[in-house]
């Protein structure tokens, strides 16, 4: 029983991390048709910002700076590099792929390829007893952060003018502009929100794994994309459920089948979901975009 609880909460913690990454990706792709391969680099940037600042600042402030770094980088990328390429999707993909490679390489050039230990405060590195299992505290931190982000995103989408523009833009971007709305502002905002969540994922990923490394973000990005495809483009609830499912499947498969099979299981689930549930539209959109 205690093993089940530990696996479940560890899986949900990992799922929470995936959600933080995937929710931004999903919003960005849903509204802007941009496949942001640089999203993983933003996760890395957030992770290193948090790593550099822990010890100098309270952990909460270090995380806040990581969020700000992610948001600022994303907004800069959107306005300087992506915006001129909206009518050139292939060039756009090349730019984000290039950034996705260059930024981690830059981080590696400055701080080296080795993983760096993130010195989190003691309150977050211990364990909590739950039904006989000792659960690392960071799992609860990640799950709580993901729930707060989920609630915040839902409020943003449902209650704000920009949220309305985003939901409408996911359906028909051209028509939103034909109603007199400057969609570009919504683009920058959505990119910045995605970047902020990537920065948060980087900092909390450092807490979860205990360390940060240059390619951590890129590795997590793969699962972020899987979650987006399973959960649905621009569908926050779907992405949250998919993220939880992917995290749980990975953990349980790794423990009960064989270590490493978890990743394969996730890919298998992706294939089954695409075939069975008919999320083909989103998949075809992704394929068209990359073809």
């Amino acid at each position, binding site marked *: 029983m205690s093993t089940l609880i530990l696996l479940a909460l560890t899986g949900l913690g990992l799922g929470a991390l995936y959600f933080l990454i995937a929710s931004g990706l999903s919003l960005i792709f849903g509204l802007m048709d941009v496949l942001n391969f640089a999203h993983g680099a933003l996760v890395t940037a957030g992770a290193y910002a948090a790593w550099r600042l822990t010890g100098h600042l309270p952990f909460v402030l270090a995380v806040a700076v990581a969020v700000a770094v992610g948001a600022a980088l994303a907004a800069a990328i959107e306005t300087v590099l992506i915006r001129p390429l909206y009518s050139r999707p292939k060039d756009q993909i090349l730019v984000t792929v290039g950034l996705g490679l260059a930024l981690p390489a830059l981080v590696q050039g400055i701080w080296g390829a080795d993983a760096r230990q993130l010195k989190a405060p003691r309150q977050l590195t211990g364990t909590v007893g739950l039904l006989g299992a000792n659960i690392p505290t960071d799992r609860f931190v990640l799950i709580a952060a993901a729930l707060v982000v989920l609630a915040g995103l839902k409020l943003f989408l449902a209650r704000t003018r920009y949220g*309305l*523009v985003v*939901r*409408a833009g996911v*359906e*028909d971007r*051209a*028509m*939103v*502009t*034909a*109603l*007199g*709305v*400057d*969609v570009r502002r919504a683009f920058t905002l959505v990119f910045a929100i995605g970047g902020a969540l990537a920065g948060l994922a980087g900092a909390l990923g450092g807490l979860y794994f205990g360390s940060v490394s240059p390619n951590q973000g890129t590795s997590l990005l793969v699962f972020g994309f899987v979650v987006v495809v399973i959960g649905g483009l621009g569908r926050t609830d779907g992405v949250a459920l998919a993220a939880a499912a992917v995290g749980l499947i990975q953990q349980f498969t790794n423990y009960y089948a064989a270590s490493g099979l978890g990743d394969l299981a996730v890919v298998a689930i992706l294939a089954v979901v695409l075939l069975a549930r008919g999320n083909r539209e989103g998949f075809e959109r992704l394929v068209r975009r990359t073809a």
Partner: protein
Amino acid sequence: MILELDDVRVTLGGSQILQGVSFTVARAGVTALLGRNGVGKTTTVKAVLGLVPRTGAIRFDGEGLHRLRTHEIVRRGIGYAPEDRGVFAKLTVTENLALAERRGAGHAYDLVYELFPELKTRGAQAAGTLSGGQQQMVAIARTLLNDNRLIVVDEPTKGLAPKVVTEVAEVLERAAERVPMLLVEQNLALVRRLAGDGVVLAAGQVVHRGPVRDLLADTELTQKLLGVGKAA
């Protein structure tokens, strides 16, 4: 003239859709844009709104629109109800209307709900679950919400039942009393009822301009330009 098009050309996917379209829209009443299917009527409307790349001059109330982006053109005071209605299916009726609200002057919800009382009672309903006629009402309501100086309505009765067509016609008639309108329409009975001036396109060019009554009274000309023997 509220709107002037001068030698407007549009090329899409290698095909020249508009080959130098020139006409004007009067400051009052309805100007009908007519022609058979595929002659470039919708493309003309999209060119005005900057929804397709175009060359040539388009002036709205004397101001050139060429360098402006779509949202800037619309904010100059143009309301647009597109051919496919452009209703956001997953948004509620109220949200569809709210999205069209522009900053500045107040929004004419009183007028909109007077013309379309159903939109008030169905405010919380997802627009995608409305009938075609109701969706058209949402599309037209959005153009009336702001203080527009021109409204552009593309095939508002397409695919609607005859009873609903009559309702739409009544609404358009009332709207036209307030604001000039550029109307793309195939239903000639509706055109006869609403429009003063008519512009006929064929193969991406203007082939006829003049009062709609004169055009529709001339059976031979109507047959030649619009492909119908007798105006309905």
